[in-house]
């Protein structure tokens, strides 16, 4: 992507940019957590109030999707959600690289989810009951045996597609938006319309000036709000799918609904 996007302003030598800015996200989240929990009061104020509202939202989502027994997975889910949201929003700051716009970061998050929900499923249901999920929702019988055997490769492929799709969805959304912004900036920058407007020619001042103003209005008024919306939406979707996978791994075989279809 270096062909289009400008590298971030602050770089540590020898360390990839997404690792540097992952550390920045960690610092931000740790600082917020420290400020919010420094002196915990029964009636929350300020940062503590804010974080409690945020975590209440996560708890509400978990209650809706997994059920009340899912609240023990709040640390995993809320950490993923806050990390991805902060990373997405950080990548909108000019001169800063977003950690979630790199395939390695998103793949790491998706692999954590992949191993976590299998572990949760095995721990809550036992190994054999959990492996029974992979043969489909039908009851065991001799007549069903070929179908259940056929379900095993299908289910395995479907489960392997989950981390791939989680990875590529977040990465593709972020990088697609960044390339769009980079191209818009390239078109309106000092080599483009604004440069033409400042070049001194009359046609440049007229066309380039009007075009540059339209581009600036379009970027500030439409593209940036859209990117902020996408940042929240992608973090929400990542968290939502994580919760669906955990719900699918913890619910029992009889009413395993369509949750195995999500991939």
């Amino acid at each position, binding site marked *: *992507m270096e*062909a289009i996007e400008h590298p971030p302003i602050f770089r540590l030598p020898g360390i990839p940019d997404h690792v540097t800015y992952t550390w920045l996200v960690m610092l931000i989240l740790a600082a917020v957590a420290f400020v919010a929990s420094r002196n915990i009061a029964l009636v929350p104020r300020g940062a503590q109030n804010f974080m409690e509202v945020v975590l209440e939202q996560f708890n509400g989502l978990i209650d*809706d999707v997994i059920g009340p027994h899912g609240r023990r997975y709040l640390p995993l889910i809320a950490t993923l959600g806050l990390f991805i949201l902060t990373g997405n929003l950080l990548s909108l700051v000019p001169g800063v690289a977003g950690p979630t716009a790199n395939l390695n970061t998103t793949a790491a998050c998706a692999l954590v989810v992949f191993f976590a929900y299998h572990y949760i499923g095995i721990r809550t249901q036992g190994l054999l009951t959990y492996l029974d999920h992979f043969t489909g929702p039908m009851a065991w019988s001799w007549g069903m045996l070929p179908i259940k055997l056929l379900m095993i490769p299908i289910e395995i492929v479907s489960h392997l597609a989950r981390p791939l*799709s989680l990875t*590529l*969805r977040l*990465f*593709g*959304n972020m*990088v*697609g938006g960044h*390339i769009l912004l980079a191209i818009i900036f390239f078109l309106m920058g000092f080599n483009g319309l604004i440069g033409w407007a400042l070049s001194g020619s009359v046609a440049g001042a007229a066309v380039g000036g009007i075009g540059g103003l339209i581009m600036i209005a379009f970027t500030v008024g439409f593209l940036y709000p859209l990117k902020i919306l996408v940042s929240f*939406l992608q973090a*929400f*979707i990542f968290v*939502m*799918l994580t919760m*669906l996978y955990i719900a699918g791994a913890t619910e029992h075989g009889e009413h395993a609904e369509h949750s195995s279809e*999500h*991939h």
Partner: protein
Amino acid sequence: MRRSLMLAAVFVLTVPGFALAQAPAAAAATGSWVGPFGVLVAGFAMAFAAGLCALGQGKAIAAAVDAMARQPGAAARIQTAMIIGLALIESLAIYVLVVAMILLFVQPIKG
């Protein structure tokens, strides 16, 4: 009219091939047509993917809005289901975007 449009499209599609055929120095290396056609394929793939993805998402949103208008009480749940469905539909177009970016930036098939 339509036939002339198709001819124009065929001509546009084959221009890189003609240009390379005119330039034997560039075409001397085997398979050097891969680069320009990779760019073309990336653009057209993204166009098809975006258009069909928009059709699919439009159907999903239409059904969801219809359901929300009939059942305003269930709007929150319908909206959640809609957003998840949209994400799953959209991820297919995102796959194409990733493939297009691989074709453009990584260029695995140099020829």
